[in-house]
């Protein structure tokens, strides 16, 4: 018998032993505490004698020594992140206790909608991530934690802006006009995330402002998250019915642990620098070009200014989290406060997050009643640099002007003022120092849930939740700046509020009928409403720059004064049956019936069923458990889910005020105009998804993973149709069209080395998704092609970069095909053989922004107290439209604007206009070292109050391997107002940083 097994036996028979040997005698007990799974010694574990003050803490080798009053003494062994254990050592003088990692415990149990399930019983496709799986570094948002970590979950940050939003696509995008973001459920409360883009001043001929939405999740402190579950297939998401089509991300926050109060303080400080700069013409190269080309009509102010250096900085970030948790037998609590400040690598930008959370659990009435309360609040303060990656934008902004501002200009002229050219190209430093754009977001989220267990198998849960998000935007463009000069100073003040109330009543019947039959049935009712309201004032013509948004009454011109309110309701009935037969055959049936006020009169209610089966082959008698494969489960599922993210009132015929008046006599008359036609048939988009997958464990669980194949068909796509003229309403939303996604996801992980003092664990995931638009027609509406996403930059008004075409994926680039140069003139293929090239008609498919596959590779090592990890992420086969180069890599804009240095090598003759074509579509494949972390756990045995102390160093975005010539191929340019953001279009996005940080964590 090997010694390890012997220890296990000892542990298992502890209770037996202590009843046999019981001497009432004080003695010194020594012991060792190890992790049950890894066998690693645990340092800092609290060992207390119940009913006495005696407490010790285990040392670096997990050993402890404590005086116990008698053989009847009970030891309470607690350690943060592990389940607390009570042990009766009895007559033993040496014991070994294995603690079960609380996270691992969670790992066994997976949070699914309206309940939990054991991992082994799951029949759908669900990825669970625990804190140890999360990305490391300066992370402000939960989305960033899971980037690359889950197969089939594609997280693309819009830009490098601190706290910026990210687009998440689970198994590809299903929708053209509605939202493609998954549903987020936080501690049981589904959040309304319409990715609210607070439109800014940008809409009046001043598109300089950041148009990226507030990241709705950046009010959740990543260090409060205990787990994230990503529900991918219909079997898993159908319980969320009309909101399940894009997948569901369930975030569960950390709860208190029974035992002595434990306090943890985490902190880090980091520095960030821009990872890559554009190579533009230096002042000397600029002058040389003019000389070489005999251009004399340019301005040379004699300076040599590198404008990018003027706007970049080494940015400092810091984070502090303090959490306290603990509890008694019946009540546990965890409270935390967090503060993160991240300065942007561009001057005058940054974000500060303040978060607070209290989670309380209380059991009463002989454990029959469980009350859970989660309350959180956050305030996010953004200072935005005027950088807009708007599709279609042709104006300047701080970042763009840093590329194209004349390098011979000094930052300040002889009189100490900013040297300026005109309102089209503005001194980049003056943007930062003169233009203000602040946004504050406040979010409160709270729910109280009570579960009462009437009689053994029956329980009832009532969940009441409330979420609130308020945003305040304040911006000012002063008269002193050329941009604000034409307005006489322009102030914008706006606020928007969204709140949601939810009531859910869920009944549950759970019973192990006998050895072979287990049943779990839930049924419930849910009511949720969502209210948005807001207002906006934009005024201009200030006498002085002192008034700004603080006193908008001082502006003589009221440009826009608007307010709005909208409300929608979602009412649902849902039920799920889990049945387990002989631990071999598992069945899950789900149905949800959703009614939404947004739907048209004829389609108020939709039903979303799903079913799945799993077969645990490894539990069959014929299966040899000691073979190569020791656990194997086959899963099959099919179901229907929906996407109800359609605008409010879209089915109603209404009249509303036009934004422009009409003067009759001398009186401006508010024009009341029809806004849309009624569409009583309007409804959700519907996705039918089939999934087949296996979960496997090999070689004594040393290798584990899963393989899934899926096919999703989305029908009744919401498309905005041009209503044939003459119509007062130009477009109407209708349910037309079909999109298909199919793909494969594979994960494999291995504990390659699994020894007491040395371990190496590797996790790898890879996924491929193929997206295809099947149809854009119904029996009523029909279209062959939808051109979208206008090209940005000077001279590209109304030129589209992408198209939606049946048979092709969403995000298809569409334009002229570049054939090379002839005598310095760009040649394009004459596709319609008309004899001459026309940018309007000679267009074809020139690229695809969807990747062939994406992958993530994580490595974790530890050696004694030292741990080391790194994570590599890659995307292959996607195309990126380098709109930045199209706009800035053309010599014909010289001398008025500076250009990217590569423009000199283009060979395009001076004076040739820029044309959007396949020339600017580049391979966006990349491999990135996302993060690398080295940590050290202190030996804290000599400091009894400490339970844990750790320091670590992390680097983020350390290298990027790509052929893409821009700064970074991972981009999503933004869309003003609402609408799906285009992927794979790079237009002066806020550049990404390389970050180094050092952090520490202590628990006592």
């Amino acid at each position, binding site marked *: 018998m090997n010694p390890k097994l012997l220890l296990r036996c000892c542990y298992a028979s502890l209770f037996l032993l202590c009843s046999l040997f019981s001497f009432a005698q004080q003695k010194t007990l020594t012991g060792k505490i190890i992790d049950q799974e890894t066998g690693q010694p645990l340092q800092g574990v609290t060992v207390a004698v119940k009913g006495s003050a005696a407490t010790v803490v285990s040392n670096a080798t997990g050993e402890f020594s404590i005086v116990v009053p008698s053989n009847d003494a009970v030891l309470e062994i607690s350690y943060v992140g592990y389940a607390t254990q009570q042990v009766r050592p009895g007559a033993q003088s040496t014991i070994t206790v294995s603690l079960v990692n609380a996270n691992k415990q969670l790992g066994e149990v997976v949070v699914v909608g309206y309940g939990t399930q054991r991992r082994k019983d799951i029949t759908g496709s669900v990825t669970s991530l625990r804190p140890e799986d999360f990305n490391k570094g300066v992370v402000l948002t939960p989305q960033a934690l899971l980037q690359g970590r889950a197969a089939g979950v594609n997280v693309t940050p819009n830009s490098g802006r601190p706290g910026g939003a990210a687009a998440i696509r689970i198994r590809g995008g299903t929708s053209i006009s509605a939202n493609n973001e998954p549903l987020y459920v936080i501690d049981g409360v589904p959040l309304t995330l319409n990715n609210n883009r607070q439109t800014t001043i940008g809409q*009046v001929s001043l598109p300089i402002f950041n148009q990226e939405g507030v990241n709705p999740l950046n009010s959740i402190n990543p260090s409060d998250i205990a787990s994230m579950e990503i529900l991918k297939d219909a079997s898993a998401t159908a319980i969320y019915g009309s909101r399940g089509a894009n997948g569901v991300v369930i975030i569960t926050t950390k709860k208190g642990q029974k035992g002595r109060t434990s306090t943890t303080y985490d902190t880090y400080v980091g520095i960030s620098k821009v990872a890559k700069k554009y190579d533009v013409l230096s002042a000397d190269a600029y002058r040389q070009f003019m000389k070489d080309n005999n251009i004399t*009509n340019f*301005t040379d102010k004699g300076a040599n200014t590198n404008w990018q250096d003027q706007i970049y900085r080494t940015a400092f970030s810091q984070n502090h989290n303090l959490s306290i948790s603990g509890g008694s037998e019946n009540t546990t609590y965890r409270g935390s406060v967090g503060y993160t400040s991240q300065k942007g690598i561009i001057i005058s930008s940054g974000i500060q997050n303040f978060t607070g959370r209290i989670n309380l659990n209380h059991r*009463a*009435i002989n454990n029959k*009643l469980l009350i859970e309360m989660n309350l959180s609040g956050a305030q996010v303060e953004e200072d935005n640099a005027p950088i807009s990656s708007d599709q279609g934008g042709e104006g300047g902004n701080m970042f763009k002007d840093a590329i194209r501002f004349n390098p011979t200009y000094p930052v300040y002229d002889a009189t100490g003022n900013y040297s300026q050219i*005109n*309102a089209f190209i503005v001194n980049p430093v003056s943007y930062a120092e003169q233009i203000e754009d602040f946004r504050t977001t406040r979010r409160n989220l709270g729910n109280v849930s*009570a579960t009462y267990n009437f009689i053994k198998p029956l329980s009832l849960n*009532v969940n*009441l939740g409330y979420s609130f998000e308020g945003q305040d935007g304040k911006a000012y463009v002063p008269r002193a700046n050329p941009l604000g*000069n*034409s*307005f*006489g100073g322009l102030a914008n003040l706006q606020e928007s509020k969204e709140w949601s109330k939810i009531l859910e009543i869920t009944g549950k019947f759970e019973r192990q009928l006998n050895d072979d039959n287990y049943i779990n049935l839930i049924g419930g*009712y849910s*009511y949720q409403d969502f209210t948005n309201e807001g207002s906006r004032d934009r005024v*201009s013509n200030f006498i002085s720059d002192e008034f700004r948004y603080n006193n908008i009454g001082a502006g003589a*011109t009221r440009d826009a004064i608007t307010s*709005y309110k909208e409300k*929608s*309701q979602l*009412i649902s009935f849902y039920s799920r049956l889990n049945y387990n037969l002989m631990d071999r055959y598992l069945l899950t049936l789900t149905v949800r019936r959703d*009614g939404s*006020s947004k739907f048209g009169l004829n389609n108020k209610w939709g039903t979303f069923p799903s079913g799945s089966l799993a077969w645990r082959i490894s539990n069959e008698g014929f299966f040899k458990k000691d073979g190569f494969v020791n656990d194997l489960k086959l899963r099959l599922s099919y179901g229907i889910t929906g996407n109800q993210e359609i605008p409010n*009132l879209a089915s*109603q*015929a*209404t*009249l509303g005020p*036009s934004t*422009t*008046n*009409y*003067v*009759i*006599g001398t009186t*401006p008359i*508010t*024009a*009341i105009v*029809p806004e849309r036609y009624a569409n009583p048939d309007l409804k959700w988009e519907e996705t039918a998804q089939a999934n087949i997958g296996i979960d496997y464990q090999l070689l004594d669980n040393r290798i584990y993973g899963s393989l899934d194949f899926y096919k999703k068909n989305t029908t009744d796509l919401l498309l905005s149709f*041009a*209503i*044939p*003229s*003459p119509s007062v*309403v130009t477009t109407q939303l209708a349910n037309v069209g079909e999109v298909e996604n199919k793909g494969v996801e594979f994960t494999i992980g291995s504990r390659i080395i699994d020894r007491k003092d040395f371990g190496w664990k590797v996790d790898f995931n890879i996924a491929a998704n193929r997206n295809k638009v099947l149809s854009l027609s119904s029996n009523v509406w*029909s279209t062959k092609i939808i051109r979208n996403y206008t090209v940005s930059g000077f*001279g*590209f008004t*109304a030129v589209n970069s992408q198209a939606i075409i049946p048979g092709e994926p969403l995000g298809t680039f569409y334009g002229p095909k570049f054939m090379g140069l002839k005598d310095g003139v760009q040649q394009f293929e004459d596709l319609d053989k008309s004899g001459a090239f*026309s*940018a*309007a008609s000679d267009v074809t498919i020139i690229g695809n922004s969807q990747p062939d596959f994406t992958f993530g590779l994580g490595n974790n090592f530890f050696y004694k107290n030292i741990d080391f990890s790194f994570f590599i992420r890659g995307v292959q086969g996607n195309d990126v439209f380098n709109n930045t180069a199209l706009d800035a890599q*053309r010599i014909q804009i010289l*001398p008025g*604007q500076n250009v990217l240095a590569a423009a000199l090598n283009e060979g395009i003759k001076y*004076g040739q*206009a820029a044309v959007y074509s396949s020339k600017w579509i580049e391979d966006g494949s990349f491999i990135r070292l996302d993060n690398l972390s080295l940590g050290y756990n202190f030996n804290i045995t000599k400091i009894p109050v400490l339970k844990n102390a750790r320091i670590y160093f992390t680097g983020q975005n350390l290298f990027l391997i790509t052929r893409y010539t821009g700064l970074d191929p991972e981009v999503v340019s933004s869309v003003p107002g609402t609408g799906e953001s285009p992927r794979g279009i790079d237009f002066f996005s806020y550049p990404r940083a390389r970050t180094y940080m050092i952090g520490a964590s202590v628990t006592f």
Partner: protein
Amino acid sequence: MKKFLTIKNSLLFILLLSFGTACTKLDEQLYGRVTSENFFKTDAEVLAALAGVYNNMGFAVNGGNLWRLLHLGTDEFIMVARSDGRWLDGGVYIEFFEHKWTPINNRLGSYSDVFRTIGSANAVLEGMQSSPNAANIKAQIAEARGIRAYAYFYAMDLWGNVPIVTTARIEPSNLPETKTRKEVFDFVVAELTAAANDLPSAKTVGPAYYPRMTKEAAYAILALTYLNAEVFAGKAYWAECIEMCDKVAAGGYILTPSYIDNFKVANEGSKEFIYAVSIDPTKAAGSNNFAQRTLHDSHAKTYNLPFIPQNGFNIVEDAYNRFEAQDIRRSLILAGPQFAADGVTPLRNIANTANLVLVPIVNPKNAAENEGYRLMKWQPDNTWVNGGAGNDVATIRYSEILLTKAEAILRSGGSAATALGLVNQVRVRSNATPLQSITINDILDERGRELMWEGTRRRDMIRFGTFFTWTPFFKPTVTPAFRGLLPIPATELGANPKLKQNPGY
């Protein structure tokens, strides 16, 4: 523990209450919006709805895409691609000056601007006609019909063969089909004639009515319809044209003593305006952007502009060359060396390397910043709002009616002396030498001088045939006749398969 129990109890009680009231009710609340069922009740509400229709007529005057269509390809307006990249816009304007436009040229999308006016008139008409108040708002109903007919006049002029629709809602299952230009002509004539009966005369309405549609405005649109009837309907209606001009004249219009008065900021209610669109950006009521679009960047100094103009709209030098030097109307054109506000200090170019001298168009596909003469017709406003001015823009002035009558008389073999008198009335006002005799081509030229950038040049050149025969260096060949109509935009054909493309496209 007791405490939790009571909280739980009260919680449950609240839950059950809310459950009971909100179980399955899914009505959508409108919050700050109205429906047509509860609107059109008062005169003010009717006027608010009409204001929306009038507002849509802005397409004809605001320098936007439809206004551009009315002038592109003519000898008085050209948009060139600048070498700094501005105004290339994918080459759509190049297609126009080369007379090579195709149905996918996105500027044609302003087809929908015209039809939106028709659609909104239809919606408002339906609301008014079904209102219990319908009998008391006959004049307002006539206004909506009049504007609808005016919008159809533009559709007939530019696209010719278009669907005629008088219902508010377009059903995808019953899409409207193309009617011939002749049918549209008959519809326009019938509608304007009917509307004129119920509309008030310009003589009876006060300044508070301006710029709503009057009886005379309907007659004036009819006069212009008849003037072009050979093009529109294949048949001359000279007598009807003259009759309509006379009916307009009975409304008491005059030529203002100064031509420029019609283009000042405070031009509201000019006695020369027969139909005009009111504009006042300080009241969030439209914006006159001609200065912003046409002026060179450096002109900001000349006019003390609080914004940088866009260097976009130009006139072709032919239009400049038509004038005598002393003609007041020529003084509105900017050509040659440019000066600051003092009229003496030379303006510098954008890069401040040379004095700005505006020269004729040399390379319209890649034009230098100083190419192209400009028209600064609508006089500068001192209260610019985001680059826009508040000058109203007339679509029909009395001088056009005089020239129209003269042309109809000449073409129908009437008194040349009468015609000469009418034309000289217009010329003398602007200090041009009175003509001694008159030919039909003199009328085309005079219209060019008098009505430059006022929406009539394309129609006039087509009526006289010069639209096709004019061959500047950037369009060296004669234009085929089918280009007298614009193509139905591809997007419209896609949206409505029942539409027929115009011949030749």
